[in-house]
């Protein structure tokens, strides 16, 4: 990010590293590994620095490692901060994934958490409205975006007369 870092970014990095969060720098994305417990504190600090909403909550199902990784992307609309996204990465177990809900800090997390719950089965405690969002109401199958939910594959060869 053209060498020298803006002041607010240095402050964020220092504040968050006190919480014992591992940070590294990719091309204009500040990546963070956060333990589920200190998720809310990290969110509060970020909100103070103008990252007042979430661009996305995306789950990643590492079936080999037996964990579901939930990645939060905090975004800001302020002119000097809009270039950098902040990525909060937390991991929970695959059997009964549980995470604290961030709806009261980031209001737009309401629908994003609902979708991640429906697609991955991650339960967000404290989210007042965890219901079906995209799938049909009578959907009984496992959360579809998990790796163990197989989609039929097709070959490219067909016999014919």
């Amino acid at each position: 990010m053209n060498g020298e870092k803006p002041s607010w970014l240095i402050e964020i990095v220092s504040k968050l590293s006190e919480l014992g969060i591992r940070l590294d720098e990719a091309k204009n994305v500040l990546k963070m590994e956060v333990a589920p417990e200190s998720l809310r504190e990290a969110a509060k600090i970020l909100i103070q620095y103008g990252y007042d909403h979430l661009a996305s909550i995306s789950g990643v199902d590492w079936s080999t490692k037996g964990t579901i990784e939930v990645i939060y992307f905090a975004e800001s609309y302020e002119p000097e901060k809009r270039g950098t996204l902040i990525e909060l990465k937390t991991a929970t177990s695959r059997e009964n994934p549980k995470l604290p809900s961030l709806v009261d800090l980031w209001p737009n997390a309401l629908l994003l958490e609902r979708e991640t719950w429906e697609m991955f089965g991650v339960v967000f405690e404290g989210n007042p409205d965890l219901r079906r969002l995209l799938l049909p109401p009578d959907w009984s199958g496992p959360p579809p975006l998990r790796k163990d939910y197989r989609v039929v594959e097709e070959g490219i060869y067909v016999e014919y007369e």
Partner: protein
Amino acid sequence: MSNSVKNFPRHIEAIWTGLKYLVKPNRMTVYYPEYFVEPPEGYRGLIRYYPDKCIQCGLCAMVCPAGAMKMYVKKGEKKGRPGVNYQRCIFCGFCVDICPQDALEMTKIHDVAFEKFEDLVFPPEKMALEPVSPALKMGAKKVKPVFDEERGLRHESA
């Protein structure tokens, strides 16, 4: 009361705009079965297959995003020839662009219709024939869209 007096001229203006287009209409639609709009060069329509150029490499079937292009293998032969299933084809043109021998080419015919659902599956032999547009077969006059400052899109006989 006050703003409805202020709005009165704007009402008149809105009605006047409507009247202007009532007197001088600018029809954009085309009588389809009688006139056939000629698509531009490089239009991605139905696919034409040239069996002689084809080296049966199967790249087109591998790259097809919708799984529409399949390699039809005859009994006893090892390599197959491509055949397209228009129930799935999305006319993205990946198969034409990836074919190293230019054995596939996209024509300008797009308005074909089929009675039965199965007719949509084109084995290699059927795909090798030149597709024909029903409107043109019925003698529709060809028309070309022309950009125009006054009327946006005007259709002239091609």
